[in-house]
């Protein structure tokens, strides 16, 4: 683990036992998170992005088996630093020492992650009273501070409100305040804005960014919205069928994507300047992981698939020190295949627009 890394997933492999058979949901995932950085995991539903993070927080369902892999976390406690493997930690210890105090999570739907029968102030104070070793007064003062931090005005009064008295955006602010109450160093946001309106979405993302800067947090975003990724991420991991198929810093992924799946995702997103008659779409749907895919899992949906894609799974090819993609198109012997022209035109336009800011 390098000096600055705070979390490192190594070859994580998870499967689920179901009535229908074994679902191989995560097939060898590697992921790094450096201190103070924001990493995004992008993918469709069923690609395994949420399961990966559930493994980190020990929230995997009963029927899950971790086949192999390690999750190294740099645990800083009482002025000492040690590296622990979160998968080896007993569940009880994970709950007591790590969850909330070191790694906190913001869930998608604030209505289901808050207790409807408890005033929000009490919910924010709850974990502080249980684990924080604070007195009631201290916890209350801290809760007020947190509510101000997440932009809830008139906090003293609103502490007594129940979740249903808040709007969706305000509720999500409460959830963020709860996540921050244990002073974590990693914040995992699982689709934090999917249930919210666009105008509020932008506000919440700006809020998380602001808090991250102030508290020096490292943040992991799980999302399927590339617009969100562009706004917040430093590094991007594109996930497909339980594997990371492309990883790079945000500019590499958005201005120089190499994997056909990333091409598809970018092209399928209508931007404000799309004037074409037809929207590009990725044909078919994601594979059912009940059946182990043979070769490249994306091949059946890939217009650029090569013959080898059906036989062997592509390894991660290196493009730059930070940019890797798992596609045979990058093999030196592969035929030269360009990305679709509409994407090329769009990237050209975007690079030009971006150049205005970089100059």
């Amino acid at each position, binding site marked *: 683990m390098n000096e600055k890394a705070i979390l490192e997933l190594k070859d994580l492999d998870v499967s689920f036992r179901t009535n229908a058979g074994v679902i191989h949901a995560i097939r060898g995932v590697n992921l790094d998170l450096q201190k103070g950085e924001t990493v995004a995991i992008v993918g*469709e*539903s069923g690609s395994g992005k949420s399961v990966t993070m559930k493994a980190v927080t020990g929230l995997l369902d009963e029927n899950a088996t971790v086949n192999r892999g390690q999750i190294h976390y740099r645990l800083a406690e009482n002025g000492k630093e040690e590296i622990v493997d979160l998968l080896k930690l007993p569940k009880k210890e994970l709950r007591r020492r790590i969850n909330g105090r070191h790694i906190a999570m913001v869930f998608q739907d604030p209505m289901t992650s808050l207790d409807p029968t408890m005033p929000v102030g009490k919910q924010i104070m709850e974990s502080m009273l249980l684990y924080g070793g604070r007195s009631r007064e201290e916890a209350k003062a801290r809760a007020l501070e947190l509510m101000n931090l997440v932009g809830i005005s008139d906090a003293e009064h609103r502490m007594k409100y129940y979740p249903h008295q808040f709007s*969706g955006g305000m509720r999500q602010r409460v959830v963020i305040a709860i996540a921050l109450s244990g002073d974590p160093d990693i914040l995992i946001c699982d689709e934090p804005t999917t249930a919210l*309106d*666009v*105008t*509020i*979405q*932008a*506000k919440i993302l*700006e809020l998380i960014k602001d808090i991250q800067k102030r508290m020096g947090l490292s943040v992991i975003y799980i999302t*399927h*919205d*590339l*617009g*969100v*990724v*562009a*706004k917040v*991420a430093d590094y991007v991991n594109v996930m497909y069928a339980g594997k990371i198929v492309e990883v790079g810093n*945000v*500019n590499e992924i*958005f201005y120089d994507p190499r994997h056909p799946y990333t091409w*598809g*995702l*970018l092209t*399928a*997103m*209508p*931007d*404000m300047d*799309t004037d074409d*008659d*037809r*929207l*590009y*779409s*990725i*044909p078919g*749907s*994601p594979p059912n992981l009940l059946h182990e895919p043979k070769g490249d899992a994306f091949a059946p949906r890939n217009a650029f698939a090569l013959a080898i894609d059906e036989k062997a799974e592509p390894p991660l090819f290196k493009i730059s020190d930070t940019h890797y993609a798992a596609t045979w198109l990058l093999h030196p012997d592969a035929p030269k295949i360009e990305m679709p022209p509409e994407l090329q035109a769009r990237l050209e336009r*975007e690079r030009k*627009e*971006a150049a205005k*800011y*970089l100059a």
Partner: protein
Amino acid sequence: MREPLLKVENLKQYFPVSRGRVFKAVNGVSFEIYPGETYGLVGESGSGKTTIGRSVIRLYTPTEGSVHFNGQEIAGPLDHAARTMLRANMQMIFQDPMSSLNPRKRVGDIIGEGLDIHHRASDRAQRAEMVAEMLEKVGLSSAHAERYPHQFSGGQRQRVGIARALILNPKLVIADECISALDVSIQAQVVNLMKDIQAQTHCAYLFIAHDLSMVKYISDRIGVLHRGYLVETGTTEEIFDHPVHPYTKSLLSAVPCPNPEVEKRRTSVSYDPREEGIDYALGTLHALEGQHAVLATEEELRRWTGA
């Protein structure tokens, strides 16, 4: 001048909350939809966009105002003939395909139900043939008629929802957030399908959504809703290239774009009508150039247009 297919005038929809209190979900909204076009309705949750769709198709009884559809007034009490005409010519696609499809019915029967009610098929063979044809049209295969909804993926289920809405060849389809629950890669498939079907059948869409980039892509004209008021309406170009109302501007500024260098530097414009001193009830719809119109008082209009 073409005749509008649907003409909504001063539509109001109130809901009683408790004794003596009503919630005004829709406050005097007017718009028109012409045959074969797509009208996009955008706004945040609680803006009344879904309510408008449901009032127009008469899942609610409008409190006030008129809804003129296919040459007939449908806002008031409906007699049997008017109801049959409405149900056959206006259909709806719902947001969540899982909760809007009966899990205990075969897909063929879900799609064929409209045919049974309106006696469109003379015998079982013809019904099966029409269902099969419809399934092919939405990109499924005729063998799928025997399956149950849970045997489909999300995108396929929404295709079933579309097939059910289109089997009677309606003139207007209300699509209420019909792609919001789908994955990005599947959204594009469904939107393309809707466009293809429109090209074949010339049906009109009322496309209700909060995703502006999708609305921009599919709509000919757009209406922007906020707190039950239609604050701005116009062609897609007019709304996106020359927004006038501050709410529209704030909505546009919040749309994320897949361009990190631009996106990271942008902050969204916030908007609160109370802070800006705007009372929607005082404004009237002012026509600007072309089909563009904005809800404003005389003074606000001067301020926003800089004239």
